[in-house]
Structures are given as structure tokens and as C-alpha cells.
């Protein structure tokens, strides 16, 4: 994580294998979808020149498809076609259709009426007129459409990595989540080059005279098929199990890199976005995924967290962190916040997240139900002895914790509360804290260590062995640097985790990551 100093070229040569695979997948995706789009679009375009009354309808539908945002279109595909290449190809194909249909239609209707009449008058059949006159004369316009479609496809194919179809998007989006500029560029530059190169090559074809175009058009299907096949080369090797990791997980030391270096785990891996990963695991498209150990979806989809027996995932124990001057100002605060300490285990937190994320209960209700069950809930005192400002990040777990703290303070002290929830990511909420906009919020030890303190790799390695050493380190450093105090941990550890379907894990007798490795290596 602290290795950003390497140059782009170093990064690219280091990742040459992956870059090659991604580029091939990218080209493959682009051309498989383009090939199918031509197979559909060209005849359809020709057909609507013969049935002018439906041409408006067909072009209109293709136009509407084009306006659907790419991510949304990919999203629509998942329930229908699952994840991977299929939905990505269908989505790309839909984008490629409009330029191909429209240009075929425009090209053919644009052929000089006199020339067509001459062809008919000489006794050519309908098909002869089409193949000998209309198509050759419309070819430059049709090729322009295919050229547009190709460039669109190269661009949209970067999004295919969201649904585990691979391509250069893996680097681009991985780089964005890891804030790794080299990684972004390693994906973006080749993608841009592909677009420029294909655009240029097709522009050359377009400029050829009709005779030579004939030749090109004859070899084009072969070429398209060859380019399409590139997609399948990388995925030709598989494995017993398939893993789906987020782009961020792929690039982190406390993620896939650690799995490889510390466990020596070799698993067929595809990159996928967090949003569809859990569902894909449930639907058996993926066997192993990276996730968060307290995510509500664990419960929703019956997933089992594999034990990290070599401790590569640093602990992410949650605890409230409070401004030291706020603790002085509100003497009752520390005691009250610590009421929650140690009460919420991983499984309880998962359960609570499940209630908000999947049962769609409000965080307030979930918080109150929990406090009542722990006999910590008390009616509000409507205190007037000052206002405590609570912050939270922008996800469900933080909302629940903020609500609990708010209720505890209102019920157990004479302070009032103002809640500033949804303060974006770590940086925003922490800046709000150091700028005296909020008094406390729940934070995680791992985040404190890696994101806020940005501890050197060596320190991180030393601390990873136990949860207490990490906690002690961040507590000491925060107090020293920011005058912020870490109170007692709440109990759960929302760390990265590998997870599998519970049933499959049981069947294969896999409980730990080492078990997983052993299973993968057994014949």
C-alpha cells in the first residue's frame, strides 16, 4: 500500500501477465459482441429498408437501448443472465446495435435510386440487387456504423469487470478503489489505445475503394471470430473452485496479495463488484468470495466465513473514538459509551446488519430492539446539559451504532444529542472530527491503522498478529497525534474475510483458509 512510488512502467511490467489477459479479454468481449451485433443488426437494417413502416419503431427501440446507462444495463442483465461473459456480451451487443442498424438503413436507402432502377431494369433479382448493388454501395456507410460500434464497445467493455467478465476495467476500477494511479492508467491507457487503434484500422478499411472492400468484407468474419476467441484463451484454465474478489481486494496486501504470499493460495479468480458478489456466491456462480465479516448478506445468503488462520486480514475491531476535550466537557460520556463495549459479537452485528439491509427495518428500530434486549434502553431524559455531536459513515452498520449511542446518551445522561450521519468515507468523517464538527464516531482499528495513520508496512506486519496490539498501537498514536481517545472495543471485528456457501464448505470440510488451500491442491 505504501508502494505508490513505483512508476507506471514498472507496474505494467510487473503486472504484464494480468495486463495481457485483461487486454485479450477486452478485445474478445468487444468483438464477440460486435460480431453478434453485426449478425443481428445488418439483416435487421436491410429488413427495415424493405418494410419502411416499421423502420421508425426498430430504430426507436435501438435508440432507447443506447440511452440506458451502461451500469444500469449491466445491472438489468444480472437477474436474467447471471454474471460473467454472457450478460456483458448481451449488454455490449445492445449498445452496438443502434449504429449498425441505423447505418445499414441509411446506407441502403441512400443508394442512388437511378442506379437501383437500372439494376432492376436489367433483370437482376431482389437478391442480386441487394448483393451486387445496394450492399456494395452502402458498405462505406455500414462500415462507419461498425466503426462507431467498435469504439463504443471498447469503452463500455471496461464496465464488464463489474460483473466478472474481465477486461481492462479490472485495473481501472481496482485502481480507483485502491487510489492507485498506476493501476488506473495501466487499464485506461491500453483501453484508450485499443479504441484508437481499432478506429484507425477501420477508417483505413472505410477509405478503401469498393473492390478492395469486397476482399476485406470476405475475411472480416474470420477476423472477427479470431478476435472473439481471444476472450476464451485466458479462461481456458480453470480450477475446482472459482473465487470472486472485488477490485480493491485484488490489489491489497491484506487481500489477494496476502492470500498468495502468505497462504500460497492458487485459485481461479474473477474480479467482480461488491454489489453482485454475494448474490453470485449464493447462485453458485462463485464458490469463494471476499467480503466483510459482519455483512448482513452473510446471513441472507447462508455464507460461512473461513477462519483466517495465518492472520493476514488485520483486525477491524470497532470502537468509538472521542475527542479528548469532549470527554472533559461531558464527564458522563465515556462511561455511557462504554455501556456497549463487548456486547456485540460478529454474529450479532451480522444479524443486526441483516435486519436493516434485508428486512429493511430502520436503524433506529434495530438499535432500540437490541438495547431493550440487553436491558440498556431507558426513556429519554430530555437533558439540557449540552449537546453531544455524533458522526457516522455512510453505511448501515454505522447508522445502527450511531442510533444506539444516541439512545444511550439520551437515556443515561442529561445531555442532548445531535447526529451527523452519512459523512461519506473515512476521510470526511475524520476531518469533521479533527475540525471540531463532531465529538465522536465509531471507527475500526484496521482503518485507523492503515487509512488514517498510514502505518508503514513493517509496523503493520508486526501488529497483525493480535487484535490487542493493533488496538494499543492506534490508541497510543491517536492520542499523541490527534488528541483523540479510542474507548473500549464494541466487540465485533468487521474485517475482510473469505467466505463460502455454508453447505459447500461443510461438504468439502473447509473451515479455514488453509483447509481451502489444501482442498485446491489435492487431486
Amino acid at each position, binding site marked *: 500500500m505504501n508502494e505508490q512510488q513505483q512508476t507506471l512502467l514498472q507496474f505494467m511490467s510487473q503486472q504484464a501477465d494480468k495486463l495481457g489477459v485483461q487486454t485479450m479479454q477486452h478485445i474478445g468481449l468487444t468483438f464477440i459482441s460486435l460480431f453478434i451485433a453485426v449478425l443481428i443488426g445488418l439483416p435487421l437494417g436491410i429488413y427495415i429498408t424493405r418494410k419502411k413502416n416499421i423502420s421508425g419503431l426498430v430504430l426507436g427501440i435501438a435508440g432507447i437501448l443506447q440511452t440506458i446507462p451502461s451500469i444500469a444495463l449491466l445491472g438489468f442483465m444480472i437477474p436474467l443472465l447471471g454474471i460473467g461473459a454472457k450478460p456483458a456480451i448481451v449488454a455490449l451487443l445492445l449498445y452496438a446495435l443502434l449504429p449498425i442498424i441505423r447505418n445499414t438503413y441509411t446506407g441502403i436507402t441512400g443508394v*442512388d435510386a*437511378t*442506379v437501383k*432502377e*437500372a*439494376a*432492376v*431494369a*436489367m*433483370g*437482376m*433479382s431482389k437478391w*442480386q440487387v441487394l448483393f451486387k*448493388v445496394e450492399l*456494395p*454501395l452502402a458498405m462505406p456507410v455500414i462500415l462507419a456504423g461498425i466503426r462507431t460500434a467498435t469504439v463504443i464497445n471498447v469503452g463500455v467493455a471496461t464496465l464488464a469487470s463489474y460483473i466478472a467478465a474481465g477486461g481492462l476495467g479490472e485495473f481501472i476500477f481496482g485502481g480507483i478503489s485502491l487510489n492507485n494511479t498506476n493501476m488506473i492508467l495501466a487499464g485506461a491507457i491500453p483501453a484508450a489505445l485499443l479504441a484508437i487503434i481499432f478506429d484507425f484500422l477501420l477508417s483505413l478499411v472505410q477509405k478503401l475503394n*469498393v*473492390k478492395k472492400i469486397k476482399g476485406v468484407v470476405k475475411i472480416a468474419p474470420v477476423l472477427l471470430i479470431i478476435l472473439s476467441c481471444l476472450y476464451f484463451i485466458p479462461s481456458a484454465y480453470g480450477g475446482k473452485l472459482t473465487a470472486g474478489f472485488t477490485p480493491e481486494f485484488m490489489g491489497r496486501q491484506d487481500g489477494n496479495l496476502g492470500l498468495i504470499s502468505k497462504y500460497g493460495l492458487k485459485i481461479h479468480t474473477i474480479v467482480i463488484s461488491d454489489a453482485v458478489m454475494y448474490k453470485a456466491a449464493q447462485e453458485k456462480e462463485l464458490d469463494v468470495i471476499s467480503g466483510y465479516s459482519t455483512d448482513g448478506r452473510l446471513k441472507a445468503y447462508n455464507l460461512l466465513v473461513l477462519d483466517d488462520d495465518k492472520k493476514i486480514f488485520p483486525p477491524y475491531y470497532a470502537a468509538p473514538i472521542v475527542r479528548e476535550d469532549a470527554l472533559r466537557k461531558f464527564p458522563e460520556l465515556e462511561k455511557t459509551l462504554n455501556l456497549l463495549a463487548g456486547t456485540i459479537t460478529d454474529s450479532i452485528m451480522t444479524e443486526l446488519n441483516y435486519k436493516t439491509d434485508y428486512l429493511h427495518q430502520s436503524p433506529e428500530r434495530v438499535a432500540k430492539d437490541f438495547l431493550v434486549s440487553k436491558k440498556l434502553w431507558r426513556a429519554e431524559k430530555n437533558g439540557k446539559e449540552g449537546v453531544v455531536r455524533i458522526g457516522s459513515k455512510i453505511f448501515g452498520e454505522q447508522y445502527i451504532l450511531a442510533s444506539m449511542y444516541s439512545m444511550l446518551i439520551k437515556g443515561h445522561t442529561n445531555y442532548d444529542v445531535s447526529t451527523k450521519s452519512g459523512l461519506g468515507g473515512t476521510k470526511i468523517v475524520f476531518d469533521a472530527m479533527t475540525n471540531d464538527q463532531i465529538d465522536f464516531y465509531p471507527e475500526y482499528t484496521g482503518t485507523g491503522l492503515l487509512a488514517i495513520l498510514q502505518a508503514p508496512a513493517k509496523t503493520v506486519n508486526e501488529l497483525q498478529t493480535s487484535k490487542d496490539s493493533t488496538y494499543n498501537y492506534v490508541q497510543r498514536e491517536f492520542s499523541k497525534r490527534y488528541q483523540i481517545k479510542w474507548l473500549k472495543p464494541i466487540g465485533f471485528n468487521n474485517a475482510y474475510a473469505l467466505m463460502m456457501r455454508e453447505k459447500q464448505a461443510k461438504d468439502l470440510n473447509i473451515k479455514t483458509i488453509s483447509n481451502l488451500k489444501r482442498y485446491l491442491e489435492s487431486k
Partner: protein
Amino acid sequence: MIKVEHLVKTYGSVKAVDDISFEVNEGENMILLGTSGCGKTTTLKMLNRLIEPDSGNIAIDGKNISEQPPELLRRGIGYVLQNNGLFPHYTVGENIAVLPNLLKWDKAKTQKRVDELIEKLHLTKEYLNAYPSELSGGQQQRIGLARALVTDPPVLLMDEPFGALDNVTRSSIHREFKALDELKRKTIIMVTHDVQEAFELADRIALMDKGKIVQIDAPADLLFNPVNEFVRGFLLEQRLQLELKSIKLTDLWTHLTDTGKKINPSMLSSDIGIWEALENFKFYPRETINIINQHTKEVKSITFDQLMSAFSKHKNLQPHE
């Protein structure tokens, strides 16, 4: 050769062609003349089924054309379009060979025929590998004609074939057209709105108006025996020129006096029109031209004044309208 009976074609409420019947004899050059919208082109296009009539019959060589597959029918009829309709993606040679290729002629035969036509149309073989866009309008129109003639079809349909050409090019093509032996034995139906052209090229003219044939006759009959005011009015503006073109020297023979002095050695046939004879005058004082009567082999040498006075006498003998 071609027999058209009660042909009708309506577009919406407009009768484009309204109950037309006519016959064209073998080897005849029939010109459909009229203003735009009179139905002449629609009539022409029904002859090779580019347009299907609403009712009526067309027989070519005694065979009803509606009973033949349109593709086969068209392959047997040459067709020349106003804007030539050459395939821009084919070379000149390939354009001419379109029909032979459809008919699967062997290559040598096609090549021989193409070369022959190129020569007859006064084009050089260098053009064979050029594309139509590299040619002048007159050359393109010749290629269009060659393409229609390549299989030597007995019937040729021409839709304003010289309409897009400038005047100079047009008159030179007219001359070639009349001289081309390939065309002499063909039955030709040509559409034009150009009265001069019709008078120059037609054996008979069918003058059309509002979807009907108003008069169908030889050019001179149209001029001197118009059936109604429409026909007279149609030709009125160019009447003098048309008369000079359609009256032949033979018609004036008796009114021409021989001056006897044959200074000029050149000899004109009496079959030409007055117009063409006039074109042979260089206009210097007391100039004469020599004319030979093709039937009697009698030769007369006449001045411009004598030719004009003979024309005037001939006119005065015509029935007064």
C-alpha cells in the same frame, strides 16, 4: 412488335395513365412526347414491368408480358435511363458486362462483344478500366447505351436518354444515334419532353397529355395535320424550325430551279431536310449548293434565295388551317 391495349395506372386519385392503346412496329422508333406529368415515363416503365399497370394488356412479340417472370422479361429488353444509372462501383467494362454476367456468358464472348460496342460508340479501350465518375456526361451516356445494347435485345426502352446532356453534346450524340447500325434494326420506344429531339429521331411520335395520347403520327403529320388545338399549340413555339426540319428537299423538288452553275463539287442528297441544307450554306454572295435527287438522279444547283422561295411556295400549297 409491341401492342399496348387499354393501359391504366392510377396513383391515388390521379390517373397517371388513362386508357392508352398503341402499337409499335418492328424496327420502328416511337417517341412518347409530352410535358412532365403527362404519363409518358409511367407508360414506358410499364413496358418492362418496373411499374405494374392497374389494368390493360401489353404484348411484346405476341406474348403477354404479365405472364413472364419480370426478371426474364427485363433481360430481353434494353433500358437506358436519363441519368445513365451506371453502377459507380463497377468499371466501365464491368458495367457493360452486367447482363452478360447475369446470363452467364463465357468470358471471351463477353469481352468480344464489349470491345465491339466500345468501338462502335467511338470510345477507346482505355476507358474499360475507368470508373463512370471519371467520364464526361456524354461518355457516360454512351456507356449506358452500350450496356443496354450488349445482348443485342430486339426492343430498347429509353427514358429521356439525352435529357441530362448539354446542347452540343446532345446534337453530336443524336447524329451518332441515327448513324448507329445496331439501332437501325431495333424497335425503340423513347420518352422525351424535347420537341426538337422527337422530331429529329422519331419515326412516329405519340404526343401525350394528362395520361392520354392526343395524337400518334409521323412528325410531319403532327406539324401539318394536327388533330386539335393542343397539338398545334404544343408545337407552335418551334414551328418554323420544325417545319424546316421535317420538310425534305424532295418535297420541294418541283419548286426548285436549277441555276446550272455547279461551282461546288460537293453533292447533297435530296432526302435531307431544309434545315440541314441551310446548314451547308457558307453564306457568300451568289453561293450555290448541289442537290441530287435519289430517285431520278437529277442534280440541281440552287442558291439560298431559291431554297427559301421554294419553301414558301410549298407552304402556300399546304391546306390552310
